[in-house]
């Protein structure tokens, strides 16, 4: 039986309280949200924090999906199942609905949170790629104030984020842009598993031309979960089969996927190309209202 190492347990009553606890308890303290990444790591003793600060009591404040002005805001404690069920998300960001359908399984999705997922920064994490494609921003709170950074800059490296030891991610923000569409394509070996490879695309159309685009990649060893190279191929051009093929090739060219039990590196690079092409094709169709 695997049991975590002993730790002290605290329960946060507000975001300020959580941050004050992080400041007081120091670097050996960790927040726990859904616990579906952290607790398995603690059971395996890959993580052994001395203090756990439970932020589940903050669900009342930090679980929401709402439209404010021209953006959608998602609270950090929103569970995967809530994002999947959200009509606001389905209307504006189909890429997130696509992704949530294939993140883990329905029971895990009842507990895992959006904030926990992107702060875990697992190199195979799905929402990190989807938010990178959407050019989302994240709000990070500390004892002295708040800062808004791009979701792409949140990821410093595998399992490493720009969130400091006494900071907490509280919200994800995504601009609603007219004439845009998005889609997510993932290959997994069995239902509920992490991606062998996945690609997400977001495009904003101006007439027949791609005015702006975002390409997100996961499980492919790509820095910041995105491919500016593929985006550059698309922007300013009509999304013809040739242009989309060139974007797929550009995305694949920057990947550096590990060979592991989910497949060999060259297979994953091939998937990066094909899945990017499929995601762009579907995103364009959605942007043009041809689902």
């Amino acid at each position, binding site marked *: 039986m695997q049991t975590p*190492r002993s730790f002290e*347990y605290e329960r946060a009553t507000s975001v300020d309280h959580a941050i004050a606890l992080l400041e007081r308890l120091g670097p050996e303290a960790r927040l726990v949200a859904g616990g*579906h990444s952290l607790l398995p790591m603690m059971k395996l003793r890959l993580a052994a924090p001395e203090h756990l600060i439970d932020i589940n009591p903050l669900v009342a404040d930090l679980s929401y999906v709402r439209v404010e002005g021209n953006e959608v805001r998602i609270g950090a404690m929103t569970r995967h199942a809530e994002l999947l069920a959200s009509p606001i998300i389905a209307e504006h960001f189909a890429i997130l609905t696509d992704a949530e359908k294939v993140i883990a399984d329905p029971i895990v999705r009842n507990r895992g949170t959006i904030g926990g997922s992107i702060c875990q920064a697992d190199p195979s994490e799905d929402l990190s790629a989807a938010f990178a494609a959407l050019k989302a921003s994240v709000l990070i709170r500390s004892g002295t104030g708040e800062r808004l950074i791009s979701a792409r800059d949140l990821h410093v490296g595998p399992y490493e984020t720009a969130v400091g030891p006494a900071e907490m991610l509280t919200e994800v923000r995504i601009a609603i842009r007219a004439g845009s569409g998005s889609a997510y394509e993932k290959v997994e070996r069995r239902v509920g598993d992490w991606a062998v490879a996945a690609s997400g695309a977001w495009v904003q159309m101006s007439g027949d031309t791609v005015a702006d685009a975002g390409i997100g990649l996961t499980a492919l060893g790509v820095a910041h979960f995105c491919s500016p190279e593929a985006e550059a191929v698309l922007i300013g051009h009509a999304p013809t089969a040739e242009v989309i093929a060139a974007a797929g090739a550009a995305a694949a060219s920057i990947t550096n996927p590990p060979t592991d039990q989910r497949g060999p590196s060259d297979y994953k690079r091939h998937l990066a190309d094909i899945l990017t092409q499929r995601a762009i094709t579907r995103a364009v169709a959605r942007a043009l209202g041809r689902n």
Partner: protein
Amino acid sequence: MQINVNLNGTEQSHDVEPRLLLVHYIRDVAGETGTHWGCDTSNCGACVVWLDDVPVKSCTVLAVMADKHRVTTIEGLAVGGVLDPVQQGFMECHGLQCGFCTPGMMMTARWLLDHNPNPSELEIREALSGQLCRCTGYHNIVKSVQWAAAHPATVGAST
């Protein structure tokens, strides 16, 4: 740490270590052994219980997180000695062999039917996709849930 858990309608109070997992609390501390524990990787779903009416993998939740919350396990499904239709369905359709996965399957199936009384076969398979059965090949589990959908409860956990 002292925790108070409403387990299947009964208030329980225990002093537990923060690292105790909810599944071990339910089985070893509260003594309700219907909930099973089958893996260390959050994959098998034998441990599924409801935390405040939402199915969760109790091996991936701390017992202290259930403090002042409601937990419903397989022991809470039958009411007044009358089996829930899901339990009856598993009997009618031979939905179990060794029975190890069964408590978790039933908790998820009951929750599904409470929210979607007439699920398609695909919806049933999707709902149960986070839970493993090494015996039945899933076919009879799906049929058991369909049987329960066709014979809704007059009494039960959901009413």
